[in-house]
């Protein structure tokens, strides 16, 4: 493992996760950097979501170290409780199957994401109950951040609608906005483009690039970790791609490097080493990989 490079945000070292007899993640190491989108790809069951669940405290890793570097401090994620990871280390995530608060309004979803900040401002509810000015100010600021994100994802006019009544694509974007309302330094997205049509995928790509480059209202660049099956999205916007297969890392590098890596092609297309790839597969690969990043 090389020393700590400038801008390293997340360092995953020798991460392993065992469920009974199944080694879901096997000695995986990689880095994610501020201002970069790190794509995590791999065939179904490769262990991508398990890595995310370890990162965000839903699983305790069997082995390995997950360190997050923020403002000169190191947070060891594998030793922290789930909610502390979001609160202190400021790692936010979205879920493969959307997890909004369906019966609460769109705006309330974004307000819940600012819970900790508002709790402190409301003097753990006691000051807030009596309408202390400091709390009212904090609440106004929170609403401003909500409004900013609602404008950004184009849901401002639906602010009072039930989140569960939104169309699927809007729910996906709302979940990302909600994660961003926690003001994270690392945003982990689990298949954000799943179920989106090509136009929505393109919009999503733009949003993610903007988030990477500091679209959060405080303008700070952040790191994005992206699990995605939609290769057109991953290859276009990822600055750096990590490929997993059967829980092991089989490739790591820029989108171009990964695309040409024989290990990756083998993982995706099977073990037919001495045979030439069928021409339509080659065409498909070049087409998906052909687009260059913006």
């Amino acid at each position: 493992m090389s020393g700590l490079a400038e801008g390293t945000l997340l360092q995953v070292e020798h991460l392993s996760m065992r469920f009974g007899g199944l080694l879901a993640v096997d000695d995986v190491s990689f880095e994610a950097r501020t201002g970069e989108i790190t794509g995590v790809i791999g065939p179904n069951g490769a262990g991508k979501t398990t890595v995310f669940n370890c990162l965000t405290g839903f699983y305790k890793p069997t082995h390995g170290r997950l360190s997050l570097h923020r403002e000169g401090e190191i947070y060891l994620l594998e030793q922290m409780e789930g909610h502390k990871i979001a609160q202190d280390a400021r790692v936010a995530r979205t879920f493969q199957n959307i997890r909004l608060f369906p019966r609460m309004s769109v705006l309330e979803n974004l307000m819940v994401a600012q819970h900790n900040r508002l709790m402190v401002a409301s003097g753990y509810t006691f000051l807030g109950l009596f309408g202390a000015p400091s709390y009212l100010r904090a609440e106004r600021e929170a609403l401003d951040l909500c409004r900013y994100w609602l404008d950004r994802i184009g849901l401002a006019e639906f602010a009072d609608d039930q989140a569960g009544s939104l169309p699927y694509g809007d729910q996906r974007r709302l979940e990302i906005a909600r994660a961003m309302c926690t003001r994270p330094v690392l945003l982990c997205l689990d298949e954000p483009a799943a179920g989106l049509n090509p136009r929505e995928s393109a919009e999503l790509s733009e949003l993610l690039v903007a988030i990477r480059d500091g679209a959060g209202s405080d303008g700070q660049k952040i790191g994005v970790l992206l699990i995605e099956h939609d290769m057109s999205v991953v290859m276009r916007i990822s600055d750096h791609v990590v490929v997993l297969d059967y829980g092991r890392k089989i490739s790591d590098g820029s989108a171009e490097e990964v695309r040409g890596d024989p290990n990756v092609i083998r993982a995706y297309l099977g073990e037919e080493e001495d045979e030439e790839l069928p021409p339509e597969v080659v065409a498909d690969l070049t087409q998906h990989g052909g687009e260059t990043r913006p």
Partner: protein
Amino acid sequence: MAEATLPGVREDSPLVALLKDAGIAAAIAFLLALPLMGFQTLDSGTTVELQYRFHWVAIATVGVFFGRIVFTLLYRRAGAARSKAPGIVGQGMARVGEGLGRFLVPAFILFALILPFLPFADRREIDLATYVLIYVMLGWGLNIVVGLAGLLDLGYVAFYAIGAYSYALLAKTFGFSFWLCLPLAGILAAFLGILLGFPVLRLRGDYLAIVTLGFGEIIRVILVNWQPVTGGPNGISGVPRPTFFGLPFTNDPAEGETAFHEFFNLDFASLHRFIFLYYVILALVLVTNAVTLRLRKMPIGRAWEALREDEIACRSLGINPTNTKLTAFAIGAMFGGFAGSFFATRQGFISPESFTFIESAVILAIVVLGGMGSQAGVVVATLFLVLLPELAREFAQFRMLIFGAAMVLIMVWRPQGLLAHRAPTVSLGPGSGGAR
């Protein structure tokens, strides 16, 4: 082609189908009514005689026949309206309710405030209103735990009992006044709420319900068996009555004390105490409501609701589920404790009999029937579940039957509860007023 019927399946005309359906229902009703209503045993001293009441069976059967027809017609119309606007069943009704609510709520509060001075209000009516308000308060307290935080609590009566016993014991042993005991009882109940909360934090839904059910029973069994302190099954009698800021409501005050009626130059009337008790519980209820409505708009209130919706998402947003659940338990328990101490001072006598599981069930039914999380729903459901059975005491024989049937009907028509409309706690007003 119009909608083709399947070959070989002969569609009855609507009228025939309706009559057939009603006939089947009537037949089932007849079969049930024959053994249930058709015979009555009469104990005539030495022998037991059987009396036949076939006219009852006939009434039930005919009633079900026509009732079924009416029900089907109504239901069909409701069904048609539903299919026109899927997913917003009851929204229209809720909106009507919202508009009405603007007038109804102040009218209701005004009515509650002047109730004791209305011409029909006598001792019995005021006492009944007090009784109903106790359940409104319990309903609102449990609403925080079940309706907002989504934690199914079947042992809520335990906190009610703790409130009642702590008032009784504190007031009898140390001579504390009601106004001092009230917060103490609330704190004690809240403390026990946290104590219960800790072991059940990981549980949800059915499992939580079982554990809380057990907790409620444990408290009751302790009350029955801890004879030296709680008086066991005999309970505690002679619980100090409330005083009007030190002025007792008695005809013959002790030496050196001035009674309420003497101080205000009134003739002694036992009604004064009832009116005072009524106002005390009314104030408690209004405070409970104000605090709950305010809490809903606080970050903690939104976190409760978020926790009800999705605990995993909450954790990923940095909300501490442990603390959030414990505060919900503690605050819900606190209101239960307040209601309990009021109950003790009103009754003057408490025993474990008053804190059985059926009480928990009724309070939970109030919350669920009213619509989870709905404050107005709790009031409506309390009127329905507590006031109506009290008023219908003459029909004591059929009380539980009517009660059960009404519950079934409501769950068929409005499975989300009577008033299930949920207004957002915050909105982006013009100029961003925020949560006010």
